[in-house]
């Protein structure tokens, strides 16, 4: 039984995908108890064919030159027999594997901090209200989802289907354009774009889009 399963794997060398590994590893218990061979228990399958595993020392030097197919199944077999630390059962689910405590080689402090947060990627959020002049119903926007004024302007332009001007912009403005303003912590209304982005984030309370000819 075991040989047939092995041969179906031999035809595809260097496969390492989880499913195949699970298949092989499900055979593991048999090999683990075969304590016979000095090299590895996979020799019980192929020792008659494979020169490496014979006890003649000169055979060691032939190994690298002989056929690759056997060496691939040998490798697979050897993986099977020698790896006691890969968790076999959990490898069958290729989406996520239960953390093996010894692979990959990451130290515990790192592992704890990161594994908890790794999958969630929980970002902080900061929603502010955005009003368009003349429109009573406002929108809300997460400022932390953007990293610069460019991104913010682009999102707003898309949200309200308008063109927005801001300082240092290379464009002649027309009456139809809009400007973006914000209310800061002190209650004053300011043009967006004058201070560094990060400083803006610490003082902005809400946004308003007004017509350019009003400013």
């Amino acid at each position: 039984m075991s040989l047939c399963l092995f041969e179906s794997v031999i035809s595809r060398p260097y496969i390492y995908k989880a499913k195949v590994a699970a298949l092989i590893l499900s055979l593991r218990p048999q090999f683990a108890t075969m304590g016979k061979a000095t090299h590895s228990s996979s020799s019980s399958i192929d020792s008659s064919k494979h020169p490496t595993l014979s006890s003649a020392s000169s055979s060691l030097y032939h190994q690298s030159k002989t056929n690759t197919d056997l060496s691939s199944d040998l490798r697979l077999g050897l993986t099977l027999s020698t790896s006691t630390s890969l968790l076999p059962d959990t490898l069958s689910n290729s989406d996520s594997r239960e953390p093996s405590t010894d692979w990959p080689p990451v130290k515990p402090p790192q592992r704890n901090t990161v594994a908890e947060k790794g999958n969630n990627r929980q970002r902080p959020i900061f929603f502010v209200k955005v009003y368009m002049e003349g429109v009573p119903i406002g929108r809300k926007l997460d400022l932390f989802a953007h990293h610069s004024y460019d991104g913010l302007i682009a999102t707003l332009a898309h949200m309200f289907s308008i063109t927005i001007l801001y300082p240092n912009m290379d464009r002649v403005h027309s009456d139809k354009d809009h400007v973006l303003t914000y209310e800061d912590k002190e209650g004053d209304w300011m043009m967006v774009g004058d201070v560094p982005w990060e400083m803006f984030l610490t003082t902005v309370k809400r946004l308003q889009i007004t017509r350019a000819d009003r400013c």
Partner: protein
Amino acid sequence: MLMAHSFPEEVLEHVFSFIRSEKDRNAISLVCKSWYEIERWCRHRLFIGNCYAVSPRITIRRFPELRSVSLKGKPHFADFNLVPQGWGGNVYPWVAAMAQAYPWLEELRLKRMVVTDDTLELISRSFKNFKVLVLSSCEGFTTDGLAAIAANCRNLRELDLRESEVDDPSGNWLSHFPESCTSLVSLSFACLEGEVSFSALERLVGRCTNLKTLRLNQAVPLDKLPNLLRRAPQLVDLGTGVYSAEVRPELYSKLAGAFLGCKELKSLSGFWEVLPAYLPAIYPVCAGLTSLNLSYATIQGPDLIKLVSQCQSLQRLWVLDYIEDNGLDTLAASCKDLQELRVFPSDPYSAEPNVSLTEQGLVSVSEGCPKLQSVLYFCRQMSNAALLTIARNRPNMTRFRLCIIEPQAPDYLTLQPLDAGFGAIVEHCNNLRRLSLSGLLTDRVFEYIGTHGKKLEMLSLAFAGDGDLGLHNVLSGCKSLRKLEIRDCPFGDKALLANALKLETMRSLWMSSCSVSFGACKLLGQKMQRLNVEVIDERGPPDSRPDNCSVERLYVYRSVAGPRLDKPNFVWTMDEDFALKLS
């Protein structure tokens, strides 16, 4: 021989005092008997890479005037849970012996050792001029032991608890530093979990005007940082606590102002839980930073890029793979002094990549950073072509550790093993001292390593190779090899036994989940008197199984101290007496 007698001892001693390096000191002591004698009386610093290689008694007998001792205990793979709990490395016997022999001991640096509160108490009481305590990846003590150190070591300059596991029952240890203590130069407690008294910390920092290194733990909130920085504007090395708080302009401006005042800062670390809005507060110090450790900072790519692009003097960067390939492109363009890069996996256990970090990032950095010599890189794909490019770009590489997260992953472009790629690394990087391999590897890679890795001192292998020839090539070819650690490789008895003498020239060999038989271990232990051949096996005594059964773990190291006397019940020393000691 006449020359040795023509100088009085005092002159020779004076000359020797200019020789600091351990290797040179060892060489001096081999010249002749009188030089040996003179040298041993004036040696003040000692580094012992394996605490079981020599005994306290032998050490003290040879070097009666030590002031500084460094000791390492567990094998490196203990960091990854490959060494069972309770294996050993307890430093107490050393401290007890040194308490008698070296009342003037000033410095103790321990790595991967078991340190108890009693030991710390003994240290604090026995050495009147104790100055430096560094506990790196140690365990077994609580903050009670730290309280004793704080309270009793009047001249303490350095207390550094790197990555140690410490129990924190009371949380008050910092308050045990007396008000008269002003000598601290370095205080690092980043690995502690509990809170410290903030007022005690502020007062301590305030009165230690020579404080250069301060590494806080996660329990120190961001709003405490500005006050601490204002009291220590001379800081060179800062580890922040949590770097996140509600967005508050006044906190931001206090923080920014405090960092502006720290004109000497060269190294930053900490950064647990970062809120990107607060990052610009450190921009003023970025240009002067030489070392930045963001390995706990879950900051995303764009913010990382903004930060890194301002650190033009950076020599060392440790970062999570959130930096992604384009972040590494920025690094390559901005940080031309970069010497060391470590990229850690943000999600090591998922089969699918969660970030866009590939081999390309490392290739970029190898192209853009001419001084890059030390790399630790976790990624999910690699190619021979990329490794060849890296090797050609950076022949000055001295430490190269690559971890492809999926074991035995082949070259993702060609599906071939990565033998040629790593072969190129050892061939082009003539000064390579440390190498860790991963991915799909056959015996061929070991041919290359044996042929070209002449300066290689430490090699780490996992899931690699086809058989004994691989191990044989490494052991017979790598002339400078000191430490070899292997897990899950099909290496057996032949290579080990054929290269037994080589093992005496090395510090240690670790093999776990390989194919080394119990019989071979016994043979090795019986033949090599100066090696400790230890079988670590949690399945019970190895002789309860047949001789050709593989052992779980094997740890072989040279020693003049004989077999360990403090072995736990899952460790057996293979020696002549073993056969007589059947349980």
